Structures are given as C-alpha cells and as structure tokens.
C-alpha cells in the first residue's frame, strides 16, 4: 500500500507537472478542510499528492463513490490515496455526507472537498453545494482553506479517458471561517469568491 501511494504521487506529478504555491497560508498538520474548484477526475489525486509528505498522511480527499468504486483498479487507487468515498445518489438519514465526513476525520484528519459537487466543464466555477457550510457549522474549529487548481481541465477533461500531460498550478490561499451569524447563502458566496480571488491574484 505504501508503495502504491508513492507511485501515485509520482504519477500525479508526471501527469500534471504541478507547481504548488502557498499564498497567505502555510503547510500545517492542524485539521483543515481544503476546498477547491473541480474540473477533472485528477483533481482529488493531484491536490492530495501536492501536499507535503507529513500532511499527505493526514489528509483524505472526499471523492465520488460511483466513480472510484467502478472497477478494481479505481478502487485500489482510491484506497491508496486514502480517499473518503461519498455516495452521491443514496443519502440516508443520519448518514448524510457531512455526518460521515465529520465522523471519518475525527480529531486527526484533514479533508479535501469539491463544493461544486460534480466536475464543471465550463470556464466559470459552478455554485457551491451547502455541504461546506454544514461542515463549518458543525466543526467551527476547522480552518477552511481555498485552493485554486489551474489547467487541470486541459490535462484530463470531462469525458476523456486519456490524459495530455500539460503543466498545472495549485495555489493555496488564505483560510476562512464561518462568521458569527453568517447565513448559508452568504457564506457559500464568500467561499466561492475566495477561490475566484486566488485565480485573479495569480493571473
């Protein structure tokens, strides 16, 4: 398993040629939620691989169960990068994705989430689903760290199987928190804006 994880990191680096920039944020083992824009199946893997080694062991990307459990190869990859698989279709009572995430992260793990829900094929980022808000509400101690993934959609766009190994850039921005009395819509808009701000700061 260790070997497979290392191999995945190398493959992710070769495929996406990422460079990582920590902008107003430093690598830290404290519990965090990294939230990023979502354009490619590679996103979760590459963002996880780009973290420093000690953080990687403590960070679990949240990924779609229906995709990552399709076939033994994907399932093996998903376990190797320690993915937390969420069923997007069947949501049970007391077993909502947010509850599952909070239970799974415990007091040690950080998560990588994609609040747009699905992959986005247009240039504009989609609207954020409410999960991030409920996570922030139930665990106000967590740092919510916005991440902007650039060029990932060109490496493996939606609907393609074969990747084109271009270069990509991962920019990690300043953490945000849920403010006192901040409403759901307002918070989600602010969270989405924080990723747009990173994109505008880097280009």
């Amino acid at each position, binding site marked *: 398993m260790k070997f497979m994880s290392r191999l995945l990191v190398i493959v992710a680096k070769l495929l996406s040629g990422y460079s990582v920039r920590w902008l107003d944020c430093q690598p830290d083992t404290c519990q965090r939620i990294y939230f990023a824009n979502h354009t490619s199946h590679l996103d979760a893997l590459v963002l996880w691989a780009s973290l420093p080694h000690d953080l990687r062991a403590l960070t679990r990307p949240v990924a779609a169960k229906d995709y990552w459990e399709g076939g033994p190869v994907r399932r093996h990859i998903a376990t190797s990068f320690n993915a937390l698989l969420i069923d997007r279709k069947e949501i049970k009572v007391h077993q909502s994705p947010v509850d599952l995430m909070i239970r799974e992260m415990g007091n040690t793990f950080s998560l990588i989430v994609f609040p747009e829900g699905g992959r986005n094929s247009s240039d504009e980022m989609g609207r954020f689903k409410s999960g991030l808000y409920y996570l922030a509400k139930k665990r106000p101690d967590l740092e919510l760290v916005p991440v902007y993934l*650039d060029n990932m959609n060109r490496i493996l766009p939606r609907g*393609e199987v*074969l990747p*084109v190994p271009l*270069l990509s*850039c991962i920019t990690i921005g300043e953490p945000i928190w849920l403010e006192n009395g901040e409403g759901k819509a307002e918070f989600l808009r602010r969270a989405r804006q924080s990723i747009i701000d990173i994109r505008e700061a*880097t280009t």
Partner: protein
Amino acid sequence: MQLIPNNLIGFFQEPLESLSGVLDNTSLLLLISCVLGLLLIASFIGRMLERQTDDRVNIAVVRAFNHRIRAWWLMIAILVVGFVTGNTCTVILFGLISFWALREFITMTPTRRSDHRALFWSFFIITPLQFVMVGMEKYGLFSTIIPVYASLLIPARIAVSNDQKQFLERSAKIQLALLICVYALSFAPATLYLDLSNSHNEDVRPEGLLFFFVLITQLNDIFQYGWGKLLGDRRVIAPNINARRSWEGFIGGAATTTLVGALLHSVTPFEYWQAALLSLVVAIMGFFGGMVMSAIKRDRGVSDFGTLVQGHAGVLDRIDSMCFAAPIFYHVAKAILEHSDKVTG
C-alpha cells in the same frame, strides 16, 4: 527476422564503441574539459553572488544567472551521458527534452476541449515516432512526418471532433508547437548520424559535431546578451517583442560566435572557414528563435514558458535558439560534407 538480433547486439556494443571513440578524440575531450572548468568557475561565482547581501547585486539577475548555469550543467550532463552510452541514448534524451518543451508550449497556448485528442496524438504518437525515425536514420521519414503528415492529420482530427470555432488558429498552434519543439529539435541528435567518412578532419567523431552545435548556440545566447549590455540598448530591434535585443547585441554576438566557431573547428569535420560559416548560420537562426519565442510569450503575456505562474524559466526558454538553429545546421553541415565528398572522391 535477422534485423532484431542484429539491432540488439548493436545496442550493447554501441556504448563501448562510442566511449572508446570519444576517449580517442583528444580535441573533443579537451573542449569538454574546458567547458566543465568554465562551468565550475561560473557556478562558484554564482554561489558567491548569492551570498552577497548588500544592495550592490541585483538578486533577480543573480537568480537568473544561477538558473542558467543549472540548465547548462543539465545540458552537458545529457550530452556526456549520451556520448558515453551511445547515439540511441542521445536520441532518447533529446526526445524527452522535446516532450517537455512541447508540454510547456501547449500549456502556454490556449486550446479548446475538442483539441484534446489531437494533443494526445501529438504527445504520444507523433513525438515518439519522430525520434524513433531519427534513431533509425530514416531521413525521408523524419524530415516529412511532422511538416507533411502531421500537418494534414492534426486539422483532420480537430475537424472530426466537431468544433469549428477558431479552427485555423487551433490547427496552426498545434502545428507550430510540433514544428518548433519536436521537428526542429530532432535535427540536433540527427547530426550524430551524418556521414563523416570523407571529412577534412580524419579522426573526428559525430559527437564532436553535436557538442560543437550545442556549445555554439549557448555561446551565441551569451554573446548576444553580453554585447547588448556592453553597448547599451541603443537600437532595439523590435521593442514590442523584446525590449533587450538590439542590433548591437545581434551583430556583435553573431561576429563573436563566428570567430569562436572558427577557433573550435578542430572538433568538427570542417575547415575553419566552414565552421565559421556554420556558426554564423547558427547565430542568425538562434537570434530568430529567441525573437519568435519572445513574440509568443509577449502575446500570451508571460515572461517565461516554465510554469503557469511567474518564476522559473522553463526548458523552452533555454533551448529556443537551439530549436531554430538545428535543422539548418544539419542541412548546411550535410551539404558541406557531401560537397567535399565530390571533390575528394
């Protein structure tokens, strides 16, 4: 059937033969040692400058200098490893450089979703095929695959993907990327296969010719930069494209390169005036390469090809002049060698 075992034997024999060949050639060894010595001194100076904390040194310039030195170490490492292990390895290493350069080029060039398959072809079929053909010495194929067949197939693949927007522009972008990064650069390792049997200089090796070429392109970059700085930027050629490249730098640099090329003729199969002519051609084409790449970077609003964010220069920033000079260097060298063939034979 006979072909495969023969090739396999050749694969193992080649490294030994080429190593002893390079070791026999004293002038090439001497030149490589000199370059290594100069690089060591330059690295030392770079380190010293990096430690300076006062305002007398420009940190950005020192950093750029050190990056360049690191790139030269890498270049010489690739060439020496190639020389020791044989032509096949050199071709593979140049193939990897091409792949990387293409990656940087396409990253900086906006393409559309529907170009994905055409890009996949470019990276994983056309690029490897080009270098395989170079390694197999199929001149007729490696000189036509990209400019003829790829230039027809890529627009076709884009057309099939059912997206008409900016069709010509997209085809041209991918085509130019392949021409500069893959096709042109592949002529550098192709010089290893030139027929030197009738050369003026008897014990010269093809490795010497390749080393000469790479060295001249890099020296030309330095000389053009140096003369431009020395004489000031009085007559900038195209300020919209590159604010630094001046006529003084270009002419001074080209003249110095020609002179140095003539002095180094003993590692090549040429007489001094032939080496000087080749160096002049390399200097002019190297200049054009720098200008074209500057134009692309200016159009895209970036300073380097290296990363999506500002910072390190990429592979393509280092080899732009080499890419442009390689095909013409190959063809002029080939013409000179064939011509002397007629005279002596």
